[in-house]
Structures are given as structure tokens and as C-alpha cells.
């Protein structure tokens, strides 16, 4: 064990250390200024992000409870990056918040949970990671303590995810019962086409689908996203979702590869429903967070499309897309959080004439939305193209056609926002908003990422070499 142990688990170890450090800060209560605290935390998170990039050591620990490789390190870095950006964006929101440190403790605990979850090779660890990343998140949803919607969203989050975990656990229990093991590696060859196992697999799958908010298991998403504090929504829609996608890929590819015919079909149906329903709902939303929720549901459809290929390219496309998605979605959420923090306005109609006074923020929003819509030259285009290309390898052209045509529908609602911002006239547009420096940094990171990531072919190739292994 020794240093190897530390290096293999470096992300988790460092996160744990940070959590305890924050706990210590909280108990010590020596730093009174929120701003100082925030700066400290942001710096720590930045170093955590940097640290995540180096000294990568692949390995397996605790008899398969935990393993890691370069792909996972990359995935963890994506999560770290997203968390860092969100932390920067949350600056304005948190600088007056009473429970600042608790926020970070909870947040980093969920991140830790996600790290464990994606590193797990075992259903027990997977389940623990999942719950660790869910339960504190529900508490975070309630973080605007005085806001009705915040508690409503938290209630919906925790109860529906409890229900979903029950379904998932029910499935896991049968998987355990029919194979006698919880270990992915041991279980995989034991999965045969008998109906109870298939049943268990389907229950597990729906559990994942719930977490991914794939239709028809998505209904909690919009309400939770709308009610939660903007930064938490961003976290939910980007980090939480990414981590589930990562583990979902692992589970499908590593564990359930015997069922690939079934899960192709399941994904087929899910993708169709997800993309179509997500779009249909998104086109008539007015609350921008709710709108982004539905748009993120649609995005999940595309991610699943890439995954449905069942190939390494599909996995890399999904991971690549998630990087792009992190930048783009967080950029959009950054602007939303700026606006809602300063003015309390969250409706698309409030954004009319936004461009008159807030040029930079408008462009950030526009670029990020274009990236989400998959419009070149933003990175989203590449992300989506690769997903669709990977998905097309299955030669389900009907599915591909519907997916691609739905990109047009989704363009419509992204353009609605763009239209409100740039085109629509407004007598009283939102005044000039000044965000904190850290928010500005976050936005700059986001648009830089949203523009340049697509051209960074090296990254995609790198992911591809990792997943190809």
C-alpha cells in the first residue's frame, strides 16, 4: 500500500482532507469574513483540480471495492473542474450566506461520493457512492432556507431519489441473489438471459435512468432544478449528471455487456422518448432554470445516443461531450446565477433586451447556448457530432434521423432565449450587472472552453486512447 495507496486514491483522499479542513475551519471559527473563506476555498479547489491532473497511478484497492485508471482520473478531473467553476460562480450567492462552510462540506462530500461511485467495481461501493452523492445534495437543494421553492425542490429530490434507489436496490438484490456476488468483474460472466436477471437488470437500468433524468423517469428534474439555488442546479445538472453518465458507461460496458442487445433496445426507446419529450417541454418554458433543466434532459438523450453505440468511440464521445457540456452549461448557469442573484429575475421574458446593458454576459449566454444547441464553431457542435456519429454506427437510421431532426427543434428554444436577449425590445431592460471577479473568471473559463474545446482534437484523441484500452 503506502504511497501507491495514496496516489491511487488521491482524489478521494484530497477531498476528504479538504472536507476535514473545512470542518476544522468551521469549528475553529477563526475566519469571520465570508469573502476570505470563499477565496481560501476557491484556491483549495483550484489546487485540488491541479492535483487531480498529476501523479495519476492506476490501480485497484480493497479487493475491487475501488479501482482507478486514467479514464477515471480524467473523469474525476472533469468533476473537479466543474465543481471549481461552480464554486467560483457561487461567490456572489455565498458571500452573505450564513452556512458557507457547511455548503462546501456538503458539496465536497457529494463530490467525494461521486468519485467513489465512478471508481467502484462493486455494487456496494456504487450504492454508497450514489447515496453519498445524493443525500447531501438534497440538503443543498434546500439551501435557500427561506425560499418555498427551495424546500419543495429538496423534498421532491430526496423522496423521489429515495424511491428510485429503492427500485435500484431491488434490482441489485436480485442480481446478488442470482449471481452470489456484488463484484462487477465476478458478476459479469454470470449474467445470462434468464428472466429474473433481466428483470433485475431492467430495474437497475431504470434506477440509472432516473438519475440521468431520462424520460419517462425524468419528471423530478425540472421541479428540482427550478427550485434549487442556481449554483446547486448547475451542480445537479452538470456534475451530478456527468458522474452518473460515467458510472453508467462503466456499468453497461463492463457489467452488462452480456445484455447489450437488450440495452441497445432500451436505450433506443429511452433516447427517443428523452429527446422528443425533453424538447417538447423545453419549447414552452419560461423560467430559465426550468428551461435549462429540460434542455439538459434532451442533452442526456444525445449522450445516451453515443453510449448506445456500445463502442469505445461512443464512450469517448460521451466523455468528450460532457467536458463540453460542463463548460457550456455552467457558462449559461453562471449568467443565470448572476441575474437571479442580482435581480431575482429568472424568466426568459425578463431577459428581453439583456444585451443593451450586459454585453459580455449576453455573449457568454449566447455562446454557451449555441454550444448546447450544437452550433459550430462552438465545442457543442463537435460534442454532438461525435455522439451522433458514434450512435450512427449502430445503423439505426430512424433513431439518428429523429435525433438529428430534434436538434432543429432544440435550436428553436435556444434561439428563443437568444432572441429575448439580443433581438427583443424592452423598455426597462435589466440594468448593468456587476458580478464578482471570481464569477467573471468562471465565465471566461466557460466561454474559452465552449469555444476552444471542439478544436482541441488532442483531447478527444486522448480520451479515445483511454477508452479504447
Amino acid at each position, binding site marked *: 500500500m503506502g504511497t501507491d495507496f495514496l496516489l491511487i486514491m488521491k482524489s478521494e483522499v484530497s477531498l476528504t482532507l479538504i472536507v476535514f479542513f473545512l470542518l476544522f475551519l468551521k469549528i475553529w471559527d477563526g475566519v469571520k469574513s465570508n469573502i476570505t473563506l470563499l477565496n481560501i476555498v476557491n484556491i483549495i479547489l483550484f489546487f485540488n483540480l491541479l492535483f487531480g491532473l498529476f501523479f495519476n497511478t492506476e490501480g485497484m484497492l480493497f479487493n475491487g471495492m475501488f479501482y482507478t485508471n486514467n479514464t477515471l482520473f480524467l473523469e474525476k478531473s472533469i468533476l473537479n473542474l466543474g465543481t471549481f467553476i461552480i464554486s467560483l460562480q457561487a461567490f456572489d450567492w455565498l458571500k452573505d450566506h450564513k452556512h458557507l462552510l457547511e455548503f462546501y462540506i456538503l458539496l465536497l462530500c457529494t463530490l467525494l461520493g461521486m468519485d467513489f461511485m465512478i471508481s467502484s467495481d462493486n455494487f456496494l461501493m456504487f450504492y454508497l457512492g450514489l447515496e453519498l452523492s445524493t443525500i447531501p445534495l*438534497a440538503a443543498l437543494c*434546500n439551501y435557500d432556507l*427561506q425560499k418555498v421553492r427551495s*424546500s*419543495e425542490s429538496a423534498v421532491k429530490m430526496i423522496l423521489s431519489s429515495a*424511491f428510485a434507489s429503492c427500485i435500484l436496490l431491488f434490482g441489485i438484490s436480485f442480481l446478488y441473489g442470482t449471481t452470489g456476488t456484488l463484484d462487477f468483474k465476478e458478476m459479469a460472466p454470470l449474467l445470462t438471459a434468464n428472466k429474473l436477471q433481466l428483470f433485475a437488470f431492467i430495474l437497475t437500468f431504470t434506477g440509472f435512468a432516473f438519475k440521468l433524468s431520462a424520460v419517462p423517469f425524468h419528471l423530478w428534474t425540472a421541479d428540482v432544478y427550478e427550485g434549487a439555488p442556481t449554483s446547486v442546479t448547475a451542480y445537479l445538472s452538470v456534475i451530478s449528471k456527468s458522474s452518473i453518465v460515467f458510472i453508467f458507461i462503466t456499468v453497461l460496458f463492463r457489467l452488462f455487456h452480456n445484455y447489450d442487445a437488450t440495452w441497445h433496445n432500451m436505450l433506443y426507446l429511452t433516447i427517443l422518448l428523452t429527446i422528443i419529450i425533453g424538447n417538447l417541454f423545453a419549447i414552452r418554458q419560461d423560467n430559465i432554470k426550468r428551461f435549462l433543466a429540460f434542455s439538459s434532459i434532451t442533452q442526456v438523450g444525445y449522450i445516451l445516443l453515443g453510449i448506445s453505440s456500445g463502442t469505445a468511440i461512443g464512450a469517448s464521445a460521451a466523455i468528450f461531450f460532457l467536458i463540453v457540456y460542463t463548460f457550456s452549461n455552467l457558462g449559461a448557469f453562471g449568467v443565470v446565477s448572476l441575474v437571479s442573484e442580482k435581480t431575482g429575475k429568472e424568466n426568459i421574458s425578463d431577459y428581453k433586451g439583456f444585451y443593451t446593458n450586459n454585453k459580455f454576459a449576453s455573449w457568454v449566454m449566447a455562446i454557451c447556448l449555441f454550444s448546447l444547441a450544437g452550433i459550430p464553431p462552438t465545442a457543442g457542435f463537435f460534442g454532438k457530432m461525435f455522439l451522433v456519429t458514434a450512435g450512427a454506427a449502430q445503423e439505426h437510421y430512424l433513431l439518428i434521423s429523429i435525433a438529428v431532426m430534434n436538434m432543429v427543434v432544440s435550436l428553436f428554444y435556444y434561439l428563443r432565449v437568444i432572441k429575448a436577449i439580443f433581438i427583443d425590445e424592452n423598455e426597462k431592460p435589466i440594468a448593468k450587472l456587476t458580478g464578482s471577479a471570481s464569477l467573471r473568471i468562471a465565465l471566461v473559463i466557460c466561454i474559452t472552453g465552449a469555444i476552444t474545446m471542439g478544436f482541441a482534437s488532442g483531447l478527444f484523441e486522448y480520451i479515445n486512447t483511454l477508452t479504447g484500452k
Partner: protein
Amino acid sequence: MNDIGLFHFLFLSCALFFIGIYGFLTRRNLITMLMSVELILNSININFVAFNKFLFPDKLDGLFFTLFIITIAAAEAAVAIAIIINLYRNYNTIDVEEVNSMKY
């Protein structure tokens, strides 16, 4: 207890599971919904324990899983109740049907 086998347990847990689901879908009080969740989790525990006992007694995987589920159930219940209480403060009700300010 020769004739009390795995299937008895499984059927029992299965019944409990769906009773829990029924409760979750019908109870209008958030706390009772939470209680239904506990029922469901318990049914799953029975499953794990039964599988461990009857099929795979060589390892204690099922048992440990149950232990962790119980722990998590406790944690989940705690957080859920905290949230419910907070909700109650804001809404002055814990009727799930009335908690629908966000929709469509």
C-alpha cells in the same frame, strides 16, 4: 424450518415492497411517504439477508449490504425529515398534493 425456504422470504419481501410502493403512491403526508420508503428498504433488506442465508452463506455480502442500507436509511430519513420540517416552516403544510408550486 426445512420447508420455510428462500421463496417464502422472497414472496414476503416482494409483498412488503409493493405495499410500500402502494403507500408511497397514496399517502398524502410526506412523513408517511417516508415511512413507506422505510418499508421498501426493509423489504430489500429481507431479500439480501435471505439470499445470503439460503444461497451464499460463504460470504457475508448480503448481510453487509443490509447493514449499510440500514445506515443509509437512517441518514436519508434524517435528512428527509429535516427537509420536511423546513418545508413545513415555509409552507405550513406537509401535504404532498399541495407542494406543487412548480409545474408544467
